[in-house]
Each structure stands twice: as structure tokens, then as C-alpha cells.
């Protein structure tokens, strides 16, 4: 038995350390450490509630809009406000641009480069992987960064800039669009669709989103060449059996994504359970955070975020991270694109999870499915904007009250719990997607989702640091600056 500390873990957002216990060529247990603390929850205490919209996007430079959206929903609930319909649609567009850019960055910048490593030099796809995915010279990386740069110009129009916009407002959006700007956005959407349909999928998006079985997927994308970067990923995934690697807890949380003008959601909320094979309704009252293994004050056990506290205690014994352990009715859950696809009942993802569980392969596949389904939704939303109707409605905040803002970020379920007294914030607690996925053990000793997923990861011949660990960690697309904020 030996111990190994892996870090700094790059190609994730923020700093990350993982401690592994190795036995007989496998990881037998893991502890995940978020090594940086900034204290946003402390910074927000005493602030004017509206000023949260300046601070919270700056929690995270990669999911900045997601933070703004969660805060603005909390403030809207506090005020009893409804956003203007145009503003609701514009906010969905802004959020979708960020979320899909994150999926693209994850695939090309964070996840695929690991297949260029020398440890894989004996695989038949290795040369192809290096040609496409070497970070500084890969041809696909170059084209993806180009597509991403162009894609983000949508936010120049919709949101002034990215990251850290103030356009997202509880009353809607502060940026009204005219007819010509809408056309410009349609052009940009088409360019992104082109990139996905030529370079990425090498197929129409509708062909991807209609997939319902693994068999159909593998029949269509059976070759590593001529099937886009998606096809090469599938080829590698089959060769390395990524469908069996990094199995999570088997429970999947989604708060529901993209509220629509008719009151529905593009993707529903709920908890998908592999045991029972069903979607349970979401019960936010059962969410708690446990600080047993965090360098934070314990404050009397696991607490709901309305009453939770975030206060450093750097010398605490048995602590190994700045992250608390969020739990849903005491259970460990996994969140992200896979949870959203399972809640939405997407047949291919349900079939893939039925055969192999929530693993490196299914997590990546779910993001790809989201690229294929959300771009067409955005095309529809753009059509729904009414040029001369209002984008933002006035609202007024009460002097006291409490509210919650829930959102699905690229990486999963994000919640802001806010309590106001005398016109000032008295408590602001944030649970980010990677707070769930990369949680430490709780008081009962249950390891978090990543910690469970790492157990059983194999060492390859000649390895000092198992590359499998790199794949498993990055398959969650962790955002460490959100995790501990």
C-alpha cells in the first residue's frame, strides 16, 4: 500500500489536489482537496442585496453568468418579481452561450489532451490524438478556440462582455436588442452550428439529438476518421473502456434548466436514481452541508444553507479541504450534464447509464448531447424575441426576507440561499456543482462523488501517476473556484 499526492491538477478551473491510496495496482481510496479559500460568503455579509450581482459573478471566471443567474433568481424571489419575457429569453441565451462554451472548452482544452500523453504511444489512435489535441499545436484545438472566440462575441452583443456581466437582472436583461442585432446573433449561431456539424460531430445536430441507442451511435460513428472529433473520442473510449471507468454514486441531481416563457423548463428538475430507475421530485429542504472534514467551523452539524455558516478554522483536526460536504437527504449525489440528460429522459444517455453507470464516458457523452440539443433551442429563442417589447421590469426589494435562487450551470446544480434583514445581507450561502461532485467525506464517513469514482482506478504499466485518475477527475469538469468561493 502506498500514498500518492497528485497536484497541482491543471486543466481544471482553479487549484486541486488529490491524495490517493494505492494497493495492488489500483486506487483503493481517494481524498480530494480544494486548497484555496477566498470567503465570498463572508464578504457578502452586510452588503446591499442588489450589490450581490457585482460580487457573485466574480466567484468564477468560467461560470460567471451562472452565478449571476442564481443570484438574480434569488433576488427576484425576494422581491416577488417576474422578469420581462424578452429578458427571460435573453438571459437564457446568455447562459446557454456560457454553458456551451464551457462544454467546448472542457472537451478540447481540458479533457482530450490527456490522450496525447506518451503512456498511450502504443495505441492506434495516439498519433491522431496528438495531431488534433496537443494543447499548443493541435489542429482541432486551434479550430475550437477560433469557434469559441467567435461564439463569445454573442456575449459582446447580449451582455456587454464576458466574463462578469451586469446585464443579468432580476427584472430581465438590461440590454435590449434591435432587429439587426438579432440577425447578427442568428449569424453567429449558424457559425457555431457549422463548427459542430463539420469538425465536431461531422453530422447534423438533429441526427445526434435523435440518437436513442448505443448501437445506433456506434454504427454511425464507427470509424476514428471521417467522423469528427466526436468519432475519435468514441473510438478512444471503446479502446480504453471508459464506459467502465470512474463510476459515481448512481444518484443524479438537477435543479432544472432554462425556464421558458410558458412557465416550463427546457430540461426538468429531479433526482434520477439508478437504484429504482426513476426520477424523484426535487426536495430542496433536504439539502444540508456538513463541515466535518473542512477547514471550517462545524457550527453544530449538518445544516440547511439558510442556516448554514462559512467561517474558516485552518487548524481543525481531521479536515483536508476548504469544501463542505453537501448532501441530499443525507445521500451523496452527482450533478452535471449527465444528471440533466437523465432527468430529461434522453434515451441514449439512459441506455448508456443502464449498461455502465455514470462514468467517464457517459459524463462526456452527456455534454455532447447537450451541445446538439441546446443550439437548436437557442435558434428558437432568438425567434421569440419581440423587438419593441420590454426587456427589463422594475422591482423593489423588501427590507427583510429570505429567498433561494437555483440554476443549472454547465457543471450542474448551483444554488444561492440569501437572507436579508434591515436591508442588508445577513447570510448568503452558495452550493456550487463541484461542491457536490468534489465533496469530502461527511460525518458518517461517506466519501464524495469523485472520491467514490476514483476508487478502483487502475495503474498502467510504468506509471507513477495514474493517467486514469486524470480522466476521472476531468470527466466531472471540475470548477474549483466555484467549489470553494
Amino acid at each position, binding site marked *: 500500500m502506498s500514498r500518492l499526492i497528485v497536484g*497541482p491538477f491543471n486543466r481544471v478551473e482553479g487549484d486541486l489536489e488529490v491524495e490517493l491510496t494505492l494497493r495492488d495496482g489500483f486506487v483503493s481510496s481517494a481524498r480530494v482537496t480544494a486548497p*484555496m*479559500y477566498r470567503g465570498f460568503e463572508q464578504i457578502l455579509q452586510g452588503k446591499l442585496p442588489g450589490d450581490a450581482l457585482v460580487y457573485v459573478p466574480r466567484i468564477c471566471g468560467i461560470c*460567471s453568468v451562472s452565478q449571476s443567474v442564481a443570484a438574480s433568481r434569488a433576488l427576484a424571489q425576494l422581491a416577488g418579481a417576474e422578469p420581462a419575457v424578452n429578458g427571460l429569453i435573453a438571459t437564457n441565451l446568455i447562459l446557454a452561450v456560457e454553458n456551451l462554451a464551457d462544454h467546448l472548452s472542457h472537451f478540447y482544452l481540458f479533457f482530450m489532451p490527456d490522450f496525447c500523453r506518451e503512456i498511450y504511444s502504443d495505441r492506434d489512435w495516439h498519433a491522431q490524438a496528438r495531431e488534433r489535441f496537443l494543447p499548443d499545436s493541435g489542429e482541432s484545438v486551434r479550430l475550437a478556440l477560433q469557434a469559441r472566440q467567435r461564439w463569445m462575441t454573442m456575449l459582446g452583443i447580449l451582455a456587454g*462582455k464576458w*466574463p462578469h456581466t*451586469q446585464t443579468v437582472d432580476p427584472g430581465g436583461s438590461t440590454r435590449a436588442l434591435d432587429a439587426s442585432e438579432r440577425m447578427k446573433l442568428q449569424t453567429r449561431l449558424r457559425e457555431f452550428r457549422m463548427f459542430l456539424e463539420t469538425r465536431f460531430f461531422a453530422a447534423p445536430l438533429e441526427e445526434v439529438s435523435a440518437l436513442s441507442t448505443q448501437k445506433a451511435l456506434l454504427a454511425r460513428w464507427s470509424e476514428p476518421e471521417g467522423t469528427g472529433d466526436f468519432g475519435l473520442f468514441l473510438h478512444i473510449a471503446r479502446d480504453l473502456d471508459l464506459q467502465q471507468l470512474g463510476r459515481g454514486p448512481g444518484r443524479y441531481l438537477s435543479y432544472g434548466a432554462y425556464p421558458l416563457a410558458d412557465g416550463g423548463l427546457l430540461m426538468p428538475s429531479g433526482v434520477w436514481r439508478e437504484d429504482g430507475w426513476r426520477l424523484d421530485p426535487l426536495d430542496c429542504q433536504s439539502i444540508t452541508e456538513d463541515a466535518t472534514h473542512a477547514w471550517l467551523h462545524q457550527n453544530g452539524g449538518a445544516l440547511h444553507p439558510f442556516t448554514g455558516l462559512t467561517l474558516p478554522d485552518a487548524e481543525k483536526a481531521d479536515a483536508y479541504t476548504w469544501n463542505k460536504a453537501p448532501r441530499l437527504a443525507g445521500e451523496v449525489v452527482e450533478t452535471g450534464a449527465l444528471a440533466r440528460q437523465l432527468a430529461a429522459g434522453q434515451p441514449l444517455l439512459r441506455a448508456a447509464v443502464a449498461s455502465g453507470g455514470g462514468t467517464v464516458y457517459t459524463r462526456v457523452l452527456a455534454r455532447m448531447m447537450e451541445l446538439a440539443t441546446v443550439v437548436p433551442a437557442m435558434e428558437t429563442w432568438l425567434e421569440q424575441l419581440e423587438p*419593441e417589447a420590454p426587456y427589463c421590469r*422594475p422591482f423593489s426589494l423588501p427590507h427583510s426576507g429570505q429567498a433561494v435562487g437555483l440554476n443549472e450551470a454547465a457543471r450542474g446544480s448551483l444554488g444561492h440561499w440569501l437572507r436579508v434583514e434591515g436591508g442588508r445581507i445577513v447570510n448568503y450561502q452558495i452550493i456550487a456543482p463541484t461542491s457536490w461532485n468534489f465533496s469530502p467525506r461527511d460525518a458518517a464517513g461517506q466519501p464524495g462523488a469523485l472520491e467514490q469514482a476514483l476508487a478502483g482506478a487502475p495503474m498502467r504499466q510504468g506509471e*507513477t501517476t495514474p493517467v486514469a485518475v486524470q480522466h476521472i477527475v476531468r470527466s466531472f469538469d471540475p470548477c474549483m473556484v466555484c467549489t470553494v468561493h
Partner: protein
Amino acid sequence: MSTIKQTLNVLWLQSGGCGGCSMSLLCADTTDFHGHLRAAGIELLWHPSLSLASGSELLTLLQDIVDGRLRLDALCLEGAMLRGPGGTGRFHLLAGTGQPMIDWVRRLAPLARDVLAIGSCAAWGGVSAGGGNPTDACGLQYDDDRVGGLLGFDFRARSGLPVINVAGCPTHPDWVVSTLMGLAQGKLGSDDLDALGRPRSYADQLVHHGCTRNEYYEFKASATRPSDLGCMMEHLGCKGTQVHADCNIRLWNGEGSCTRGGYACIACTEPGFQEPGHAFLTTPKVAGIPIGLPTDMPKAWFVALASLSKSATPKRVKLNATSDHLVVKPAVRKTRLS
């Protein structure tokens, strides 16, 4: 590359920040990000989001720099320096090393030819130093608006320059790339930095310059609610007439800026912007007059001009100012003499 004798070796590290300046960098206006850097002679030794090397590979690289085996030309630091708790730096231990990031920065900075603070957190402390500053965050060479910070008043990089503050929250990709290009070409000296150590290439402008709301500003036709088209200085907290940055000339993400996005300039390139002493999106006033008047403008002049221009505001400008789309179009006129 005739002007470049050797590549500029760049090491990019992150600490007490959000990573948004790196994400902003990836929005640089080029169709070939890495090719652009290469052609400019900029060699990224390591970047958190852009390098294959991880874990022990990075630690070896850091040791090579410390031991003098690898030349470090530009050390780019993103995020604030977290000195707490109690001066230990425990709020950020660099993963895999068990050592405080502030110690790594103290060790590496004197070895670099130039040191760059990327973004307002690294420059002054920024949002990470907000509220009661729970982590005792500061900038590389500033603690809020006071010179000092982690590296101290007297720090000079090997080039002789103080820390170059590429401030902004986030910083603009082009501010970073053009500063690195200037260093690679040996064309960035002390005269190219402003009084706060910011590259003058962007800090000699005001956000007001090029603002699309300037006609509203001229007539003091003011927005009263978010999404209104009018000038946001009088009511909505906009500081664009005082803030150093070329955001409305060198646009963001193609054609954006804060004011074009329908919200105030909150002075994110300036030290202390995170604690303005008033609600961010409400203009503080004394006797109805905004406290923060345009830079270089005497108050009496401003008051006189404002009252004159308010009384002369065309109906079109006045009505459009409080609407989210044009309600009165400009009249069509002949523009030639005959």
C-alpha cells in the same frame, strides 16, 4: 521575426481569484490563438488551462526556474495574494507542494525579468479583498490603493520595472497580449506605465471615450432604470468619465463594453473599486449633484454646463433616454448646401 532575438518565456500562475482573466484571454481577437503567441515570440512555459503538463511535471519546471536552469522572462500572476490566516498564507497552499502560494511568488518574482499582475485582484487585491477582507488579500505590489502589497514598495523585477499592473475585472485579452508583445519586442519601459503601473496603451483613455451614450451625456439626458438608453452617470452609478481604460474603443467580445451592455462602469481597473462606499448601480450625490464628476473638469463648469445642456435637450434625446429602444427617430434632413 527580425525584431525578436529570443522567445519571451512566460509562466502563468493563479491564486486568489476566479480564473476569469485567463478565460478572458481565450477570447483574444485572433483566429489562431497559439499561433499568434508563437509568432509574437511568446512561449507559454506553463499555463493552468493551456498546458498538458500537470502535477510533478509542473513542480519540476518550477524547480528548474528556481535553480536557474530555465530562464523566466515574464511571471504572470492572476488572482490576489492571500496572506491569511495570520500571515501564514494557508488560505492557498499550492497543490502538490504543501507550501503557501505567497511563498512561491516571493521565490519566483525576483527571478523574473518582468512581473505582471493580471487583473485587479493580482494588482490591488480586488474583489478578493472585499468586505472585511477575510483572507488578508492584497495585490503583488499594492495593498488596495497603497503601494506595498506582497512584494513591497521597493520591489523591482530584473528589468528594473515595478510590477506591471494589467488591471481590470476581468482584464481585456488585448491588454494582456499587447503588453506581452511589448515585452517580447523590448519596447515596454517605465515611460509606458501610468502612475499606478498600468500599461498606458489602455490606461491613458477613459471609459467615457467612445461611449455610444455620449449624445445623452452631452445633454444630461439620463437613464433612470436598467435597460434605459440614456446616460448612466447621473443616476445609475456610471464612473466612465473618471475611469482609466479604453473599453469603448477597444471593445470586448467583438462589439461589447459594460455601457453597451446596459450597465454602469464600476471602475474595475481602479484600486478599491470593490468597496465603492455606495450601492454600485446608484450614483451618490450631494445636493443633487453627483460626487464623482468627470476627470479634469472643475465642478462649477460642470454644474453650469449641465444646467445649460439640460435646458437645451432635444425632445428626441430626452424621450429616448428613458426608453429601452428608440421611440423618437432622428429627423431626416438634407445635409448638402443646395
